[in-house]
């Protein structure tokens, strides 16, 4: 509707368009043809979907040479819109000098936005391809370092994807 109440048409319809019927028939042919295309459904519990590298599953910490890359700068915890991350820093003899003595992500709070991955200066927290998260209670949903750490070799696809597209 225009400001003066007139209907503005982008394209004037001709007589056959306005009769609807040929257009309806065209639509019917389209939907009919669609019926014979293959289905894209994955039968979930029996078949599992393996997400591609660009998939944002639950966040994990990257582990390299037996230690996490994280330097406990706290940026991820700061940026997390859901306040899901808790980091406690401590000192170490290694070259990186700092490490998280405690690193917890509350998976019930996490919204899989990927901000933590984006902000991390060490590429230490990245999104994995895991999407099956089931908990029986709130405590179970708080993932500590034991559950978060994944070796860099395991996360190779995602790291490669980040290198190319970021």
């Amino acid at each position, binding site marked *: 509707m225009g400001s003066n109440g007139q209907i503005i048409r982008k394209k004037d319809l001709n007589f056959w368009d306005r009769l609807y*019927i040929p257009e309806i028939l065209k639509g*019917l042919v389209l939907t009919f043809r*669609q019926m014979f*295309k293959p289905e894209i459904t994955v039968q979930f519990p029996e078949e599992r979907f393996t997400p591609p590298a660009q998939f944002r599953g639950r966040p994990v910490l990257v582990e390299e040479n037996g230690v996490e890359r994280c330097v406990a700068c706290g940026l991820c915890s700061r940026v997390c819109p859901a306040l899901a991350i808790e980091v406690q820093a401590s000192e170490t003899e290694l070259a990186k000098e700092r490490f998280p003595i405690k690193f917890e992500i509350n998976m019930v709070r996490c919204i899989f936005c990927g901000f933590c991955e984006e902000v991390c200066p060490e590429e230490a927290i990245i999104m994995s391809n895991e999407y099956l998260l089931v908990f029986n209670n709130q405590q179970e949903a708080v993932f500590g370092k034991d559950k978060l750490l994944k070796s860099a070799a395991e996360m190779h696809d995602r790291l490669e994807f980040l290198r190319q597209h970021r």
Partner: protein
Amino acid sequence: MELFIVAAKIVVVLGVLLTGAALTTWAERKISAFIQNRVGPNRIGWAGIFQIVADMVKLVMKEDIVPKSANRFVHDLAPMISLTVAMSTFAVIPFGNTIEIAGQNIKLMVADVNVGVLYILAMTGMGVYGVTLAGWSSNNKYSLLGGLRSSAQLISYELSMGMSLIGVIMIAGSVRLDQIVLQQTEYVGGWLPAWNIFLQPVGFVTFLVSAFAETNRLPFDLPEAEPELVGGYHTEYSGMKFGMFMLSEYINMITASAVVTTLFLGGWHLPFAETWGLSPFTLALLQVGTFAAKVICMIFFFIMIRWTIPRFRYDQLMKLGWKWMLPLAIANVLVTGLVLLLTTN
């Protein structure tokens, strides 16, 4: 004996109708799934054919919630009206010619009413009471809007529906449905079956559009338009009362298909089958089969339309009804009258 035959016919027709409605829900879900490249129900029974049984069990087990400020009596009554009306319309549809069983000549229709067409119009008109009362008694603004839309829609389309039927009645010279079908078993020029779809193409289109509007199917399902009215008239219904509305929608669809078949697609007439020299009994069975096949095709068409065309806007619906359908139907009556006058003289 008479009574027994009638009872048997009622039992058979109701049984077929309810089974048919169950199968139609399944067919709709399957077809819509295929159109959207999905699989559809596939867990219960072969290809999910018993999904409706599971759904019915679920609906029966559910709590029946009635809003606090609703009119309880009318709230209970509305789905019953819908279902009763939906089931009783089918009574006058002739689903076959006469059949001879054990020396008895049985007409294959439940009630041989001599005003069949009027009965159908009256019954479909009654159906709106269920919807409107459901909308009103729920004491919910969305339900009420749905109910009101339904009655406005009915008034607009009842007219063109009746008008488009007049042409058919004029050709058959009768309002008896079996007469109308018998008239369609003749041939024009010896090869084209005199089905009303060929004799009355405009009447067919207007009737079909009106039938869609009367059954509240997409593209005319404004009474329950989900995006704007939550669930429309059945927003406040749960459990089996909701199930009754659903069931009556599907029964209505079957009945509408049967009515279209009877009035325009030659009913149980299978072209040239009478010249194949079959025994009367086989022929009668074949004709019942033909009728079923035609109805199934129409149901398929109903479903395809639903998953193809988006919903009309309310003003478009009214405009289509009053500015296009009604004049078209009236013009059709005039032209039919003129042609009949010229050809019979």
